[in-house]
């Protein structure tokens, strides 16, 4: 078959879910073995249960913490996305005042450190709210979730604005010439095309949020990293346990975020606009 002298990228192979191949497994196992081995060597003199046994014993509790991190990230992403889409649409609204407000909110929350927003959410929100006669408790993790959803909102708003503005303007004019109203143009022509452009950066954002959820340990939410340090204390604060324990947390997050990252790359390749 003759190859055309035109830059035609080959269609990417379909995405496979288990992108972790033997190589990655080997690296991970090697890392853990190194950490555990070093710890074993240090602890060998004392009559401790082995490091692996210690990790195993605390696994149910640590996994509970990890699931909690995932829950926080999913909820923050859901809240942040809904608000972010509204804010993003606000940035391209016909009303100049609305555009300005949306722009300001986006820039404000996009350029604030996540930890600072988290502190604000933790210490400014009450621990319970009274609506009528009903008391609704606002536990720490929920406040942290709200804190995380603010940067998600701002970043999603930018993703939405960017995607809308990346659609060639001719489409708006074409729609107008076909007597589409502005709203119908937006919802039926522009936004459907935006979805696939927004998906990869939005997933990237999700990965970042998931990894950022450990920040909640700073403000006293009992998530995985908090539990790791509590487990370390419960095990007598032995120095040789530090690396295996934190390494364990690292591997959990890696195993969760890496496939998302690969999927993002795959989608980016697939949706790449070829001109």
């Amino acid at each position, binding site marked *: 078959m003759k190859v055309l002298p035109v830059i035609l990228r080959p269609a990417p192979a379909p995405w496979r879910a288990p992108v972790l191949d033997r190589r990655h497994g080997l690296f991970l196992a090697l890392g853990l073995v190194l950490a555990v081995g070093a710890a074993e060597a240090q602890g060998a003199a004392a009559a401790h249960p082995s490091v692996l046994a210690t990790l195993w014993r605390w696994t*149910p509790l640590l996994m509970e913490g990890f699931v909690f991190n995932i829950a926080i990230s999913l909820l923050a992403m859901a809240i942040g996305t809904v608000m972010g889409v509204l804010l993003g649409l606000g940035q391209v609204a016909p009303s100049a005042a609305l555009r300005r407000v949306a722009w300001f909110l986006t820039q404000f929350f996009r350029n604030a450190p996540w930890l600072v927003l988290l502190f604000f959410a933790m*210490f400014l929100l*009450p*621990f319970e709210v009274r609506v009528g006669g009903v008391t609704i408790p606002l536990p720490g993790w929920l406040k942290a979730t709200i804190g995380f959803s603010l940067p998600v909102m701002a970043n999603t708003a930018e993703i939405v604005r960017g995607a809308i503005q990346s659609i060639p303007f001719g489409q708006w004019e074409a729609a107008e010439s076909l007597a589409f109203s502005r709203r119908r143009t937006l919802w039926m022509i522009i936004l459907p095309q935006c979805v696939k452009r927004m998906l990869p950066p939005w997933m990237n954002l999700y990965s970042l949020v998931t990894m950022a959820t450990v920040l909640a340990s700073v403000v006293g939410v009992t998530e995985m990293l908090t539990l790791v340090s*509590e487990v370390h204390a*419960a095990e*007598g*604060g032995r120095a040789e346990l530090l690396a295996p324990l934190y390494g364990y947390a690292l591997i959990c997050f890696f195993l969760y975020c890496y496939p998302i990252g690969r999927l993002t790359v795959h989608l980016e390749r697939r949706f790449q606009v070829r001109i």
Partner: protein
Amino acid sequence: MRRSILAISMLAAAAALPGAAAADVLDRIKERGTLVVGVKTDYKPFGFRDPSGAIIGIEPDMAAEVAKKLGVKLELVSVVSANRMEFLKQGKIDLMIATMSDKPERRKVVQVIEPLYYSDAVNVLLSDKVKVTKWEQLKGAKLCGTTGAFYNKDVASQYGTDIISFDGSEKPLIALKQGNCIGYLYDQTFIAGKLLDDEWKQGYHMPLPGIMETPWAIAVAPGEDRFAKMLSDMTKAWMKSGQIIALEKKWGVKPTDYSERMHKEYKGS
């Protein structure tokens, strides 16, 4: 018309306010059926987690006694030094038993329960080979210490010891293991926790009485006098019956001088 509605609603609000303030924390606990206590979860053996995730230790046990006395369920909330007083002020926790040293500036923020239930002190983790009973016997001895501990200088000048400082608490322990010094000068509660660990149980001990005591305080929100009175009475009863010493023994800690002194003092009363 509108003005009168406003006036009526303001009156209603004013009438409602003192009513809300009169219900104190004891009423709220009874109404809720749960006592919420803030404890540490990273301070073995005073408050830490077991593999099921439950919070256990000396302070959770004390909290359980308070709940039993009130006849309500107990809920433990994990607190850290940075948020424990804030939680109390907000009302997120009813009571705080969280290894908090009693300090004048803290008394301005929360209400401290007297008598103070426990006390940390300064002590030395010594190798078993070192047989001493008095601090004076440490004259000229080499001790490892943690940089920045306020008592390093005082101990050095008062007892003539030679202190080699390290950052944090891990490095001096390693130095002690390697024989760079004969003991580690640090907080007594920390050393007591270390002695629970198999690594230190054999070959090390804490034979000296603690010095420079820093008492710990149970605290409630300011203005909760009724609850404070009840807790004060409970603390006295604990000291009288030797409950705190019993808890120390239960969790493997050598009873502190402070606990024993308080027990002696209140036993007669």
